[in-house]
């Protein structure tokens, strides 16, 4: 099976190419074709994981791709280890769920063929990224992931907001990728290899140390910040909600944002080589976690709440990775993939039913949409980290990893974030599903193609927690077990986390269901904070300002400079030539005798020259 792992990404891309080339003629079957392809990939990925489980260890398959003079050798290759096999399953599973769901959700869209082609391209890119065995191919698929997200976010290109969001997503992540690319260049220069395993060995051999290691790690982390939406490159993620909702599910669960976390995990030895880098990574993660959670508390758009929730949870993962919690981060990624995909699909189902994103225009949906309510509840509990749902275990692991790393400040941040998480998700849940219907329109439960994926995902969101221990052991086989993680068997941290979840739940319950505390009163009391949060800390405005006032001004200034100074110099030279010509043509004034004098003067000069070169003629004078 291992040698045939390439089929896993090949199936989706083949399906995408087929659907893309045949175009609108097969619109009706497009989704079925791509879904079938991805189902095939999923089966193969499961089989692959089975093989890896049976024979743990790291396998590498390479093919030469590019070779030049000067010792450059880039190979195309696959790295199959527990990490990649787990990611393959996550990616194919979530993708399949999203595809099937989309069959219902997007059924009436005229560009459905294009949609499924892009979706499959997305899956392909992510699978390729997961399988890459070297930085160059990692980067290549990394960029393709960015492209796919661009295409999908901007799928409804006629909506200016969607087109803008797509562009923003691409540019912001590319900003991070720039750092990533420079990091790759630095690595290539100093370690002279791009192979991930070889890099691990090189780091172990101590070839990367000190400031260099920090610089490399931080540069590479720039890429992860962009893709995984870490502060301050998080601004694209909420806007990406302009895309179709299943796409959001895919982006937020299994593909785009997971890429950053995956990359850090994949290149963990490089990060672990620098204490400073790890510290920075963990603080950025922690800050993003609480920062995004606070914003999520006041949003009105259901998808935006989930988007900021994703940011916050990604912060968790990054924080864990920064604390050396390699398996914790990956495990949270896995459970998060399940429950966040579920949250989005459920949200999509709601939006599909009520045709609005504003939670205040929903309400009382639990009566008409039973299944959706149920799965949303499961997902919310998982997100809030309530025992025994998956989120509880993974969040616990994250918090434990901060504790074990001795970062009490981060542990505190994590707990506080857990409180906020619980609050905002139940706020959303209560407002949307409980209470009285906000409109008279009667909402219907979605069709089976949409509910079945949700049900499947909810099983995972509920039950994945059982896999905690085996998951950890399995993953440790990659990179031969990072030594940082020791076992923790205390009860304090799970207890605290649960307490936080319950507190958050209670707060939301009191404010939004019981209305014991008036939400508007709270809002007025903390108006400045509310305004600040509502406006997302004005980060977007700052970027806007920086782009408009600095970049475009510089750009326009340079354009002016080019037209008027550089080209002006050129035209100036032309003008000077013309002026000289004009000036010299004044000599041609039409007066015969001037010409005559010129002529004779010329003769005089020639005679002088001749005489000067022939001094004997005038020798008598001396």
């Amino acid at each position: 099976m291992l040698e045939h792992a390439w089929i896993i990404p090949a199936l989706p891309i083949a399906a995408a190419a087929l659907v893309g080339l045949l175009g609108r003629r097969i619109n009706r079957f497009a989704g079925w074709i791509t879904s079938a392809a991805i189902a095939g990939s999923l089966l193969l990925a499961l089989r692959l994981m089975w093989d890896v489980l049976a024979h743990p260890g790291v396998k590498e398959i390479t093919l030469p791709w590019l070779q030049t003079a000067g010792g450059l050798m880039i190979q195309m290759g696959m790295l199959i280890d527990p990490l990649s096999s787990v990611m393959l399953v996550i990616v194919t599973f979530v993708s399949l769920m999203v595809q099937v769901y989309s069959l219902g959700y997007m059924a009436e869209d005229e560009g459905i063929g294009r949609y499924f082609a892009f979706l499959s391209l997305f899956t392909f890119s992510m699978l390729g990224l997961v399988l890459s065995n070297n930085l160059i191919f990692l980067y290549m698929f990394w960029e393709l992931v960015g492209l796919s997200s661009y295409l999908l976010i901007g799928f409804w290109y006629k909506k200016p907001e969607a087109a803008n969001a797509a562009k923003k997503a691409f540019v912001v992540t590319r900003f991070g990728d720039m750092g990533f690319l420079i990091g790759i260049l630095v690595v290539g220069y100093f370690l002279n290899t791009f192979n991930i395993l070889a890099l691990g060995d090189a780091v172990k051999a101590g070839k990367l140390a000190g400031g260099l290691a920090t610089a490399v790690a931080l540069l590479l982390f720039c890429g992860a910040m962009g893709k995984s939406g870490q502060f301050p490159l998080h601004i694209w993620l909420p806007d990406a909600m302009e895309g179709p909702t299943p796409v959001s599910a895919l982006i937020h669960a299994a593909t785009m944002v997971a890429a950053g976390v995956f990359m850090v995990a994949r290149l963990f030895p490089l990060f672990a080589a620098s204490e400073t880098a790890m510290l920075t990574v963990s603080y950025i993660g922690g800050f993003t976690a609480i920062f995004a959670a606070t914003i999520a508390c006041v949003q009105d758009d259901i998808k935006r709440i989930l988007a900021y929730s994703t940011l916050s949870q990604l912060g968790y993962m990054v924080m864990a990775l920064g604390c050396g919690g390699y398996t914790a981060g990956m495990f949270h990624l896995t459970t998060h993939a399940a429950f966040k995909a579920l949250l989005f699909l459920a949200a999509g189902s709601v939006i599909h039913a009520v045709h609005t994103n504003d939670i205040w225009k929903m309400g009382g949906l639990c009566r008409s949409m039973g299944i959706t309510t149920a799965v949303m509840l499961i997902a919310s509990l998982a997100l809030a980290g309530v025992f025994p749902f998956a989120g509880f275990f993974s969040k616990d692991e994250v918090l434990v990893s901060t504790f074990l790393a001795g970062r009490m400040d981060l542990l505190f941040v994590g707990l506080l974030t857990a409180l906020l998480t619980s609050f905002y998700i139940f706020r959303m849940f209560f407002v949307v599903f409980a209470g009285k219907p906000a409109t008279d329109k009667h909402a219907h439960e979605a069709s089976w193609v949409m509910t079945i994926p949700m049900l499947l995902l909810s099983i995972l969101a509920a039950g994945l927690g059982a896999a905690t221990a085996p998951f950890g052991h399995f993953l440790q086989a990659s990179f031969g077990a990072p030594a940082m993680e020791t076992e923790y068997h205390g009860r304090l941290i799970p207890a605290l986390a649960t307490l936080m979840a319950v507190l958050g739940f209670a707060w939301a319950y009191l404010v939004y269901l019981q209305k014991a505390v008036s939400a508007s009163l709270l809002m007025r009391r903390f108006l400045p904070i509310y305004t600040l949060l509502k406006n997302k800390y004005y980060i977007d405005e700052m970027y806007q300002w920086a782009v408009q006032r600095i970049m475009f001004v510089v750009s326009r200034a340079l354009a002016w400079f080019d037209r008027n100074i550089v080209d002006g110099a050129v035209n100036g030279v032309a003008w000077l030539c013309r002026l000289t010509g004009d000036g010299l043509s004044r000599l041609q004034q039409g007066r015969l005798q001037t010409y005559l004098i010129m002529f004779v003067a010329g003769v005089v000069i020639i005679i002088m020259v001749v005489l000067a070169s022939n001094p004997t003629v005038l020798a008598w004078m001396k």
Partner: protein
Amino acid sequence: MTLTLTHYLLASTVLFGVGIYGAFSRRNAIGLLLAIELIMLAVALNFTAASNFLGTAGGQVFAVFVITVAAAEAAVGLALIIAIYRNQKDVDLDKLTLLKW
């Protein structure tokens, strides 16, 4: 103190120079033409002197040619002046500046 070729050549050179000056500075086209005739005259003298001092008849032949050309030139030149005068009512060279840029 006998006359040498140098004397004659110097005399013709001075005459030539005066003619050149005239050609430079006369405002009137007729004056210009006369100055040119003067130059021709100097050249003819030059040829003749050289011919007679060196004993080669060729110089005199050329002097004949020069005189002939001078006559032809005078004829054409003066005809031109008359033509110009008829058109412009003036033969002031400073005003005959049609052939410029």
